[in-house]
């Protein structure tokens, strides 16, 4: 059963040009995905690929220029005002930077309890406190945290508080925007384990945004790779990691940090800057080793036969 479904999302921003003019930048270009119950779908891509914009549209934090979003079977693209606020109970977000995402002037009880004031206005103060304590406990924090302020906690603890804040209204979907990238590897492991336990306990669905492929490989069931606002490849984690079809995915995987000094390439030369993105056709064609006829005006449609392991490429990587 799909809990969150996005269909042909589009979003453009105007770039530059203080007094009008400037250029149109397609941040999200025809993006569709489906998130099933209890599943983790990772959105992978580099900065500017549109992964965060996609997630923000899915949460209705941003208005799309086109396309539709369905949450728990209900079309939400046109919902506004109070009904929209009520829908947010079902989809909550955990942010990247635990130092910036908690209000420094609010006690933890206020931060964690805030969602309850909106979504369960009839709850008494004592009930709210009990509920907040319960969720903090679930996230590995003691009740004594409730009366403290964010600066009294470490990065990992703050991220636990951020997760508790999202969970307190009992959502069905969590959007996790780089939830561990600001953390040390030892703390990262704790938070990833916590997310996994909570997901199993509560049958949550995760939309997991990350640029870290090792983390994605560890947590995700399915992966969607984005480049320049488009989905270039989508499939299960093992399909995408073991047999990447899009040359961009292949390059990303090859750029992963090595695990052991023995894997070092010998005799490296200085690689030149190569960051161009084509404005027409396949956006990756300027750097693509496989580029050929047709890439100039390729429409980005899925070229797979089964549409399970989808890829938007005319000259996909072959595996034998």
């Amino acid at each position, binding site marked *: 059963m799909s809990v969150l479904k996005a269909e042909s999302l589009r979003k453009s921003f105007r770039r530059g040009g203080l007094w009008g003019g400037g250029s149109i930048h397609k941040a999200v270009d025809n993006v569709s995905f489906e998130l099933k119950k209890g599943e983790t779908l990772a959105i992978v891509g*580099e900065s500017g690929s549109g992964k965060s914009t996609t997630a923000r549209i899915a949460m209705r934090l941003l208005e799309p220029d086109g396309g539709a979003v369905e949450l728990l079977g209900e079309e939400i693209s046109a919902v506004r005002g109070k009904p929209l606020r009520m829908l947010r109970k079902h989809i909550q977000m955990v942010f990247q930077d635990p130092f910036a995402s908690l209000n420094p002037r609010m006690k933890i009880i206020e931060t964690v309890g805030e969602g309850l004031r909106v979504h369960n206005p009839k709850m008494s103060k004592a009930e709210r406190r009990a509920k907040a304590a319960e969720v903090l406990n679930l996230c590995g924090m003691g009740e004594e945290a409730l009366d403290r302020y964010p600066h009294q906690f470490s990065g990992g603890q703050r991220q636990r508080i951020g997760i508790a804040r999202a969970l307190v209204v009992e959502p069905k979907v969590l959007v996790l925007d780089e939830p561990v990238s600001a953390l040390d590897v030892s*703390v*990262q*492991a704790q938070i990833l384990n916590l997310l996994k336990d909570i997901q199993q306990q509560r049958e949550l669905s995760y939309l997991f945004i990350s640029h870290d492929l090792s983390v994605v490989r*560890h947590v995700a069931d399915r992966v969607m790779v984005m480049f320049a606002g488009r989905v270039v490849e989508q499939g299960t984690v093992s399909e995408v990691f073991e047999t990447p079809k899009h040359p961009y995915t292949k390059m*990303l995987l090859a750029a992963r*940090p090595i695990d052991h*000094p023995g894997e070092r390439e010998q005799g*490296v030369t200085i690689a030149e*800057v190569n960051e161009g993105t084509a404005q027409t056709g396949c956006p990756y064609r300027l750097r693509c080793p496989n580029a050929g006829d047709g890439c100039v005006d390729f429409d980005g449609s899925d070229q797979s036969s089964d549409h399970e392991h989808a890829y938007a490429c005319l000259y996909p990587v072959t595996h034998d």
Partner: protein
Amino acid sequence: MLQVQDLSLTVPLQGKHLTAVEGVSLSLQPGRVLGLVGESGCGKSITAQAILRLGEHQGVDRTAGDILLDDTSLFSMNEFQLRKVRGGRIAMVFQEPMTALNPVFSIGSQITEVINLHLGLDGDKARARAIDLIQDVGMQDAESLLDQYPDALSGGMRQRVLIAMAMAGEPEYIIADEPTTALDVSVQKRIIQLLRALQQQKGLGMLLVTHDFGLVAELADDVAVMYAGQIVESGTVHQVFDHPAHPYTRALMGCRPEVSLPGSALPVISGQVPPPGSWPQGCHFAKRCAFADALCEKSVSLDVWSDNTHQARCVHVSEASA
């Protein structure tokens, strides 16, 4: 050689001077890369900054030890001599390419300033040198790039400019503090390749400060692992990766998702790094260590080193690495 000898530093915290670095010794050799690894708050960045005597105006004080550049103590130098050393003999590449460049000066003027200061070149000669440097770090259209301002460049390009600036004074040593952390994966790989190629071509000694074992695996010849102000293990990169000896090193390497089965629970280190001022007696890691016993908490001088090149500050080395 650049040597940090038994260095102890205090930082001003909560109105007190608390020890943040305790008895750290490191040695940087020309042509070799030393990776200084540890979690945030372990003291690695202040150690690195102390090598250029930075951080002193923020109240970081040396309480013991010395830093020697070819047998001359950096602490015996006056401000004029230090200015020659900074950038001229020891250069630094910082973590944040977005903030480390001055937004109101062109790329060219920022690079030529360094060339002028350390090589005494100016005018067309300095500009020609700047163009060479820009090409050395893999960027095209050097002429027009010099006239641009930092905001016109992507993060990866800014980091290349910072590396070009570090190279401008023709230093013998480079201190790189998390040089790839803020960058995209594919850009990271290119910056790693750039640093390695430059380091090898010019025979630089490099101190690579990072929390990322992947970066250490990519670049380092030698490794020093830091925990709560102390070096707890040091050795060659192969020794440390193949036979990590200190329980902390082993635990930290084990937390990485790269080395776990997808979907499995990741090994964790319980608790957190104790901040300066609350370090325990004896071994600083004892409270979080699976092998700790009464001996670890009592024993203050934990200098049990396993052999000459591979050393670990742990009384249980043989059991822990068995």
